[in-house]
């Protein structure tokens, strides 16, 4: 699917708004959106939400041969996946320009900053070494994927534990997790990326651009830094020239942001550790609270099946499952429509809500139900005519609604 382009009108509006020192979501120029870091049950699984942007990172490992050029080092792979999941304009399988830029920057941030001690990943020099793999999945694209991905990747690396290994002469043993506690990777520091968007020839600058701001920006500067004020990555893209003062100012802003985010990561790691120690429930399932309208929670349910019932049902299921096989295909729609007028008891819960997924007649629109069998046939005829004329409104939507409620 193609990306919907931003209209000129909207573009100008956003630019004018920025010129007035305002942002669409009411943030100040140097504000980040809300950041939420969560860890999964498996080690090295991290989920980061930056506003509505969501990224999932998973660290995994395997034992393999080290690179010929670096026989004493382990290997770190960084893989950024931009799939249609995040945004309909991303294509499956094919890396876009944006995707390549993203994965290159992430690789530079993680590998070239030497944050991970590669030598500690070596088992036998030149023969066996750990290959650590970081998979970054972008789940939702609402701007500034890069910062979100870098936070997720570094938190996942800090959270990850690899199985312990011992070497006795020629013999290498990889200990199971029950045998020996898994060991953390040695992470020297935490490089994080902070993006700055520039507008009107670098006159205005925003931190953490949203997707709309990203569409209208003239240029972008990415600063990779750790909390010790060590610059790890710097990249400027777009058609603009920057003054020395601007770059310096960006780096000092980046420092404050990085310090704050690093603190947050440590806090999240600590909280997760505490929960694990106490044996409390943790992981993604805990993120969902039943308070919100869109979220629901069902406690563990026991399924009661008596032994007698089973033998009873066995015979029934025998016959019904054979029926099922013959009927389980996609039933033609015509049959479905004809079957609708059969008066099934539909309990109307409230306005607009039928009995979800239990079939029966439509409760979405007030349609006289009495002669629906005939009208359905008529309407189909009408619809065909209408479609030719190009005014296809009532009939089709009504038919659709009926099917939804089945």
């Amino acid at each position, binding site marked *: 699917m193609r990306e919907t382009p931003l209209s000129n009108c909207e573009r100008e509006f956003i630019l004018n708004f920025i010129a007035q020192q305002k942002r669409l979501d009411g943030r100040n120029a140097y504000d980040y959106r809300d950041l939420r870091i969560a860890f999964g049950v498996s080690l090295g699984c991290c989920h980061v939400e930056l506003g509505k942007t969501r990224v999932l990172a998973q660290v995994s490992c395997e034992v393999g041969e080290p690179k010929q050029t670096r026989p004493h080092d382990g290997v770190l792979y960084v893989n950024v996946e931009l799939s249609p999941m995040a945004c309909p304009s991303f294509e499956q399988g094919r890396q876009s320009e944006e995707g390549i830029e993203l994965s290159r920057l992430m690789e530079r941030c993680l590998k070239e900053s030497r944050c991970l001690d590669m030598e500690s990943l070596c088992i036998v020099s030149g023969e066996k070494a750990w290959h650590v793999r970081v998979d970054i999945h972008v789940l939702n694209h609402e701007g500034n994927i890069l910062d979100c991905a870098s936070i997720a990747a570094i938190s996942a690396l800090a959270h990850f534990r690899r199985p312990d290994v011992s070497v006795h002469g020629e013999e290498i043993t990889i200990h199971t997790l029950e045998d020996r506690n898994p060991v953390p990777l040695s992470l020297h520091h935490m490089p994080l990326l902070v993006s700055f968007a520039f507008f009107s020839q670098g006159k205005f600058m925003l931190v953490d651009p949203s997707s709309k701001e990203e569409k209208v920006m003239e240029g972008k500067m990415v600063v990779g830094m750790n909390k010790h004020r060590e610059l790890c990555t710097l990249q400027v893209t777009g058609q603009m020239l920057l003054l020395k003062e601007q770059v310096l100012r960006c780096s000092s802003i980046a420092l404050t942001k990085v310090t704050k985010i690093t603190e947050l990561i440590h806090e999240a790691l600590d909280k997760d550790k505490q929960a694990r120690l106490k044996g409390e429930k943790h992981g*993604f399932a805990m993120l969902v609270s039943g308070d919100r309208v869109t979220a629901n929670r069902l406690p563990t349910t026991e399924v009661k099946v008596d032994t007698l019932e089973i033998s009873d049902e066995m015979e029934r299921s025998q016959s019904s499952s054979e029926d099922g096989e013959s009927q389980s295909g996609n039933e033609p729609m015509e049959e479905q429509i004809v079957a609708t007028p059969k008066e099934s008891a539909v309990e109307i819960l409230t306005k607009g809500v039928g009995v979800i997924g239990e079939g029966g007649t439509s409760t979405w629109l007030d349609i006289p139900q009495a002669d629906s069998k005939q009208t359905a046939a008529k309407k189909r005829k009408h619809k065909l005519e209408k479609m030719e004329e190009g005014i296809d409104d009532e009939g089709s939507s009504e038919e659709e609604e009926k099917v939804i409620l089945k």
Partner: protein
Amino acid sequence: MSSFTVVKTEDLDAEQEKGSACVLRGQTSDLGCLTRQDGSVSLSQGDTTSIAVVYGPAEVRINKEQIDRATVDVVYRPKVGLPRPEHRKQERILKNTLEAAIAANLHPRSSISIIIQETEDLGSNLSCCINSSCLALLDAAVSMNFMVAAVTVAMKENSDMVLDPMKRDETEAKSVITYVFDSMKLQVLTIVSNGKFSRAEYKRGLSLAREAVKSVLQFYRESMSKKLLMSE
């Protein structure tokens, strides 16, 4: 050897509160958890979680266009590494199951694409994927002939059955069967099995799964009606 993730056993045991074998683990759903898609849901069954999103009915690529029905596209995305043949197989199973459920002939020359991201596979992953994609379809308000719901049953060596097995149960079991039912008549839609089992065992599993699937369907209904009733 392929890349593997590390899961501590004591973490898995944390409050699993799985007393008897005939228990469905706790489920949570979060409808519309993402913003760029037509429908999205993050579903968890115990510790196993997956995120499914739906686009559609939308514009279709010309080489995939079907003149009488919508093209259903399913993409399964593993958490670690690139998709391998086993994931393609899973994609295929999901596609065949969902194609039966979606009323594709209502939307000719369009595409309905479903993307499923594995976020945590700790047992009964396939049923979690099927259930999450069905909820995502409901969230996107795609017309369906019926809903689908899946339950996994593992058979142990001593022919004991474990409903909704965890990863450990799955590896210890001699066979694992995933039953997929439709919501209208609770008829079998898809069976995915692994390992050896006898006919009697299959039938026992079927009746257990059929009983269990009712609570999954009830959960769908609760989640949907909560959203529809309260978001007015």
